[in-house]
């Protein structure tokens, strides 16, 4: 352990990237853009990639971006995915606020708590999407939301791991 800690692979002179501040937000927008992939699928079971990466960053660090950046990122997500404009703006900003409040309450965190928190947030996201679709005239049975919800929750750890890798890269660690 001690030897492993001493034998750092870190290269001397390699610090944070000059654009490190914008990397988290850029990755969120980039994953939102996955909606432009030529996938024609009618099940709707794919996860909300942008949202997964957003909470992945926010659960990893408390300051990946100034909180209000969630609003423009949400707008980009709305426009790219074709959901009603304003849904992700409100939801993503509310997520930032909720996690700030959670941060003030929690004494400690571990993987299970983070996964549980993420699961709750993903469930709220799916439910709101379903509710807004119902308001827009497309009331599908709530059971149809369960498979994408399960898939998203199972995918979150992978997403968090990828985010942590990007975080280490941008900080030059």
């Amino acid at each position: 352990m001690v030897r492993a800690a001493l034998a750092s692979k870190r290269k001397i002179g390699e610090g944070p990237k000059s654009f490190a501040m914008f990397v988290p937000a850029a990755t969120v927008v980039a994953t939102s853009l996955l909606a432009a992939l030529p996938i024609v699928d009618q099940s709707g079971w794919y996860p909300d990639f942008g949202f997964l990466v957003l909470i992945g960053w926010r659960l990893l660090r408390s300051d990946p971006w100034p909180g209000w950046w969630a609003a423009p990122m949400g707008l980009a997500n709305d426009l790219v995915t074709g959901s009603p404009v304003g849904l992700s703006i409100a939801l993503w900003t509310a997520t930032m606020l909720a996690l700030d409040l959670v941060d003030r309450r929690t004494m400690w965190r571990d993987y299970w708590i983070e996964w549980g928190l993420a699961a709750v947030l993903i469930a709220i996201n799916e439910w709101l999407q379903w509710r807004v679709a119902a308001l827009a005239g497309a009331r599908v049975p709530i059971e149809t939301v369960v498979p994408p919800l399960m898939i998203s929750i199972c995918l979150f750890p992978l997403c968090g791991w990828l985010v942590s890798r990007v975080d280490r890269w941008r900080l030059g660690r």
Partner: protein
Amino acid sequence: MATARPGWSRRAQYSLFFSFLALIAGIFVGLFLLALSLLAPARFETIRGAALDITGPIASGLHEVTATAEGLVTGAGDYWDAAGQNGRLKREGAAMRRQIIQAKAIVQENRQLKAALHLREAQHDAIAVGRLVGSSFNSPRRFAILSVGTSDGVRIGMPVRAPDGLVGRVIDAGALASRVLLVSDRANIVPARLLRGGIPVISQGRGDGTIDVRPLEVGRNPFKRGDIIITSGTGGLYPPLVPIARVVKLDDDGAVAIPLADPAITSFAIVEPPYEPAAAAETP
């Protein structure tokens, strides 16, 4: 910003407070825009069209790549069991030829009958032909992205069909791409009828790629497995006699059907003008 106590610094306290205010303002802006886009969707037409012009061409370009790759794979697969396939296709071709001759005779007869009745039918030419290059794969809504836009003459509200059947109607149009509300979306209600017997029915998407069909008149369930649903032309938006779906399962007062034009494998989608132009003005 998330620390509970930023210390004694007045500046830090204020910046924490204002960041909270900014978040709350962001939530309200979002809710306001959401209410606006639910109540007055037309307000966002331009910006949504502009966004489509960014993502549409990306999807189109990548679609070419995946289509080529898929073509190579299926092309190789076609050589496998080529002799058996050849025989089967020949039999199908012969059966098809007989049916085509029959259908041609019926069309001719139909034309004569219509001429006798002095019925005039509006001719509808395709406005544009595009490909379905993307879809809303992570939401309860069923949208697809079509690779043609207003520069090709596509307008919001126009019906979209494929050679196999009805695809849906245009709901967002950018200059280079447009978004189609598929028939399998819950909000897409199509006046239809049963090909066998002509009983009027209503087709409504179920949000999972299938369609609910219900008879207009309550009573005995008129559906059978394998029944074909076609558009009736009522309402004036969709042209009549376009096949929509095939019934696969019956339930208590209707049936579940699968769209005949599967957006995932449909190679071309044809945008047509609304069947009766007055209907276009009413569609949201």
